[in-house]
């Protein structure tokens, strides 16, 4: 029996050689997850990493827990069945922007709305890594790749807005360049009961190098990001502070001056019942806005497996635990002598 209290980060790394490209953002995410696991106090045998297909989806092989590398885009379905079979497991779903939002968009939608108590980590590198660099559903319009030599003509999807529209009960964003922020975000995701969705900005150094540098490079981070803190106003910038205000139905960014009335600033509240505020936040994209990271929304909603178990209990209380002989004899019977 593994004693969770004595587990360390090392206990969570498997004996398999990690095969991502040197410099890939996935390494930092792996380290952050392995570092988070011992803090959760969950025995190793109760943790399962489930993934689809993609560079990111190789993740389970590197975790010394149970792991299931499934098929492209369908990991949410496997996680659902696993939770139905055993609601007590801590299930972590690893997916990519292609896996989760292209081939698996439908499954992701339904996983989020069903609200199984699982954690979904979407590694967003805005590219198909494993298949060597085609544009993905999160690639920006005009993105030139091998499959879009003249630039992508598609409108990208914003994962956070997708999650909110899918009725996700926990929606957050973090980035591979900040281990501390990742660790905090993963812990919050684990603590949330229901489906936790975390988008992770991830650097694919081979096919979409430094795609997020404009946002998260140390030099610009403070100007171009807002680290969401509960109860704190939405403010970016180091020397010059930029605040987020609502004008009518539109968020706008304005420099804070001495005349600014601080009470007019938007204050972060991830627990609002209405999803409207979280949607405002989610719509804040680079370069028009500083990009929010942290927890966008967390609400309480019944989770699927608990509701299902409750039905089983209710049915058994009402009709008694089903016996085969009663099942066979249900309806009209007759005897032949």
């Amino acid at each position: 029996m593994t004693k969770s209290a004595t587990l360390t980060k090392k206990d969570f790394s498997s004996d398999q050689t990690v095969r991502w490209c040197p410099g890939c953002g996935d390494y930092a995410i792996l380290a952050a997850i392995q570092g988070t696991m011992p803090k959760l106090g969950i025995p190793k045998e109760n943790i399962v990493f489930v993934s689809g297909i993609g560079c990111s989806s190789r993740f389970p092989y590197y975790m010394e827990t149970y792991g299931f590398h499934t098929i492209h885009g369908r990991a949410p379905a496997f996680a659902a069945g696993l939770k139905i079979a055993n609601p007590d497991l801590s299930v972590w779903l690893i997916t990519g922007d292609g896996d989760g939002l292209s081939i698996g968009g439908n499954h992701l939608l339904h996983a989020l709305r069903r609200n199984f108590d699982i954690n979904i980590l979407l590694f967003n590198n805005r590219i198909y890594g494993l298949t060597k660099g085609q544009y993905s559903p999160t690639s920006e319009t005009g993105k030139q790749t091998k499959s879009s030599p003249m630039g992508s003509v598609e409108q990208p999807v914003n994962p956070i807005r997708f999650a909110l529209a899918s009725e996700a009960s926990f929606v957050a964003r973090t980035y591979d360049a900040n281990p501390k922020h990742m660790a905090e975000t993963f812990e919050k995701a684990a603590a949330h009961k229901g489906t936790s969705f975390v988008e992770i900005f991830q650097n694919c150094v081979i096919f979409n190098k430094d795609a997020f540098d404009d946002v998260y490079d140390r030099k610009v981070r403070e100007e171009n990001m807002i680290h969401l803190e509960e109860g704190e106003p939405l403010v970016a910038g180091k020397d010059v502070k930029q605040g987020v205000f609502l004008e009518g139905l539109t968020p706008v960014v304005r420099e804070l001056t001495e005349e600014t009335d601080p009470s007019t600033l938007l204050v972060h509240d991830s627990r609002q019942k209405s999803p409207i505020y979280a949607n405002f936040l989610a719509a804040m994209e680079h370069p028009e806005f500083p990009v929010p990271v942290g927890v966008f929304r967390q609400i309480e909603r019944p989770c699927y497996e608990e509701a299902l178990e409750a039905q089983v209990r209710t049915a058994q209380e009402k009709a008694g635990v089903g016996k085969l002989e009663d099942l066979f004899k249900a309806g009209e019977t007759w005897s032949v002598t």
Partner: protein
Amino acid sequence: MTEAVQSRHTLESATIRFAGDSGDGMQLTGTQFTNTSATLGNDISTFPDFPAEIRAPAGTVPGVSGFQIRFASEDIHTPGDRPDVLVAMNPAALKANIADLVPGGLLIVNEDAFGKSNLKKAEYGDVNPLEDGSLDTFRVVRIPLSTQTEQAVAEAGLNKKAAERCKNFYALGLVYYLYDRPMEQSMAWIERKFAKNAQIQDANKMALRAGYNYADTAEIFADTYQVPKARLASGTYRGITGNQALAMGLVAAAQIADKPLMYGSYPITPASDILHELARLRHYGVRTFQAEDEIAAIGATIGAAYGGAFAATGTSGPGICLKSEAMGLAVMTELPLVIVNVQRAGPSTGMPTKTEQSDLLQVMYGRNGDSPMAVVAPATPGECFTMAIEAFRIAVKYMTPVVILSDGYLANGAEPWKIPNLDQLPQIEVSHDIDPATFQPYSRNEQTLARPWAVPGQPGLEHRIGGLEKDDIKGNVSYDPDNHQKMTDLRAAKIAGIADDVPPLEIIGNADADTLVLSWGGTYGSILTAVNQFNNDGGNIAAAHFRYLNPFPANTAEVLAKYRRILVCELNNGQLDLLIRARFARETNSFLKVKGKPFQVSELLAFFKEHQA
């Protein structure tokens, strides 16, 4: 009024078809007749035949719904080729069914429905078939069913339309009288069904009684019949459809093994009823999961199997197309699950409500890579029960997905089912007892070649599985060429080895004939009936019916070698036929039918005759 003296003739078997508009309640009428006959002790076999549209335009031929029932005092295996009695509620029903009625058969028509507009909708033009002599070869009984029903139920105080809707019970009453069946059971059913609506309850009961009394007092039938009890083995019986049997079999398998049952599915005709049956059984610990599509349904099912549940998924052909990739994953990860395919006429959407056996090669080979999987096929509606248990037995013993090939005919057809004693049910042994000290995810049981079923939650057994090729024993990702060869061979050998663990292929008919008929799955009843009849009429033929298609039973080659001539009969364009030719290098002749309908005994007899020179 006729002057004919009524006399009751005793028959060994009779076949009735109720046909009407989809909204006329013919399935219900047929089911009532079936249940009453079953309770009387007849052997029964039914064939519901309904349109894909919930309500095709009323009065048109595509909107016709039919229910055929054969009931007998002897052992029967088919719902009958052609009805002896046809009840046609409107011109479209007449048009769609009259060609099947036996010459001299009894035709009961609702005269009221033969107005100009209905005749036109049924594309009869200006000619009323009741008037033009075209029905002279039949005994036609014309009854103003709508009017008489309305009058009969007047007291219940329903409006005209609602009153007229009771006419199916009026028709049932007529036929109950014709075949000397009691009304009590249907009366009781009406009381239960309409417990909350006294008016409708009364009206339906009045209609049923009025129909019965009318047949009696007006002596509308020159002859009436009785079909005595069948000599069924003693025991308690119930009627059962293939889908009901399959659902119960899945539940039973899980209970036998002391496991929860998880069933993941996406609605599709004709498999949805399995989901409906199981969704009601939460108190049996059944967890149904209505997924967003068939891919998710099997994904969740594999996930549940990985989590240690007895997990099954059910669909029809188009759903199997979607599941194929995940079926391959189940082969690669060697997890136990049951995949039910209630086949329907294809390709593509095909004819959803019509039966066919054309997915055999799909489930055998319709996946990328060499991806062998066990395939079984129940032969009768009742056998869907035993085969569901058998499928789980194989799945967990060999750690493999197992496909059950049912079909629309089995799924919706009903027969009496002898309720089994619990202690007669087969045993299924499951073990997760694995020593962490020696655990290897892809080590194998020497005899079965099964790998261990290690389940998340078990300490010390943490391991990773997935669709990438795994190395032998350890189960780590491997691109080693020799390993892939070895694993491919192992996966094949594991499935092939099941052959020794299933019942041998049995010969029916005249074993020492020189001609062997081969068939599989849902056609058993018609094949058996045809073979017996052929031999009784002086023919000489043997038959073997496959319930195990992958692998074939161990004695298959031996059986085939005994016969000079092989005839393959199946409801597709030659799929078992192809397997027999390929596997056993035998020439065959085949009788292949794809009309969305089961075999008729008469067409099988003609085929046997033609090939038995």
